[in-house]
């Protein structure tokens, strides 16, 4: 077991621990990169409280993430802690950090367009999605849903490579 988190700056130290927890579906990104950690606070009784938001309500990764967070905090010697689910305001793909967007792109997943699409845009619009390999915008959507609800499947007509696009929500 490693040493306990410093009493001074315990919240900052916890953020560092959380930044080392990878998303189970997209391990190139941490849960902090994805904007899933909503707050870290110390309650008056000394309990460290971590607020987590789910990306999608049915995302099976939500429970895995919660367990990973609990494991990481225990291993780091965080002391008493509680993980809370935060539903409101609802998670938005706009909260993926600049660093997170860069990592997504490098991983071969096109980061979500910003700002998150309005109702009209979701139903009617098709903003151009650029290929993460050759950067061509001559691409087509093959499937609205991919390996996870948060992504759709695309194909590049220029380099013929398939790729995933992280939907804006």
């Amino acid at each position, binding site marked *: 077991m490693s040493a306990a988190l410093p009493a001074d700056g315990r919240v900052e130290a916890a953020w560092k621990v959380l930044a080392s927890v990878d998303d189970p579906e997209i391990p190139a990104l941490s849960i902090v990169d994805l904007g899933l950690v909503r707050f870290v606070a110390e309650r008056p009784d000394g309990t460290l409280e971590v607020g987590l938001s*789910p990306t999608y*309500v*049915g995302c099976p990764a939500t429970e895995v993430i919660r367990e990973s967070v609990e494991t990481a905090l225990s291993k780091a010697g965080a002391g008493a802690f509680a993980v809370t689910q935060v539903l409101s305001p609802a998670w938005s793909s706009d909260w993926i950090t600049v660093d997170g967007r860069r990592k997504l792109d490098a991983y071969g997943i096109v980061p979500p367009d910003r700002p998150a699409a309005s*109702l009209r845009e*979701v*139903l009617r619009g098709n903003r151009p999605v650029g290929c993460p390999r050759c950067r061509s915008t001559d691409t087509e959507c093959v*499937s*609205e*849903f991919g390996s996870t609800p948060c992504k759709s499947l695309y194909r590049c007509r220029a380099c013929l490579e398939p790729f995933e696009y992280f939907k804006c*929500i």
Partner: protein
Amino acid sequence: MSAAPSGAAAQDLFRFVLRLGDLSLVLGQRLGEWVGHAPALEEDLGLANVALDLIGQARLLLTYAGEIEAKGRGEDELAFLREHGDYFNAVLAEQPNGDFGRTIVRQVLIDAFQLELYERMATSTDERLAAIAAKSVKEVRYHLRYSSDWLVRLGDGTEASNARVQAALEALWPYTVELFAEDELDRSMADRGVAPRLSDVQAAWSARIDAILAAATLQRPKDRPHAWHGKRGQHSEHLGYILAEMQHLQRTYPGARW
């Protein structure tokens, strides 16, 4: 934080939240039947992902219902141990999948309903329902994008595909009436600002459906009086089969966990 309701108000809210949660749960279970059977891998993924979102909604809603009831029942007890007469979903959700076109028709009708309902419920006086609606509506937009896109392709496709989805529309349309049939419970929820007026939801739904049907070159069937009361626990014969499959494991091995 608003105070938790008690007494008769809690009983009403409990039943109302079950109506919403059961609609999502039963439809999600239905869509799950497509896994491994859809016409193409992309549709297998698409329907499964929509099912997952719906079951996610159901989990949030049934968990909340259990807290309102305050008798120690959680999402699992409510999903797996209730009899069909204690399910309050509108019967449209439990109608069989039929062919892919029929599944898509049912999906468009319910996606558009959930979209208009949740958009309005995001400002509910009930903070918890407002949060669940605001979260869910973002996903429902993508559900409707998927289902309406397919309905247009099938309706405006070949003669055969058009005939099949038109027939599915005729068969399923009568069940839509129940979604908007306002009873005392719906009225009291609207009076308290917990839920929108169903007449408002219906007007918006109707306009949205008309636009989709026009793009799909499909004819809107005539409204007929309905005889279904799933929202009061009176279901078609289909729900029993759904529950038998969904509840089998928990009833055979009570308390079994993954």
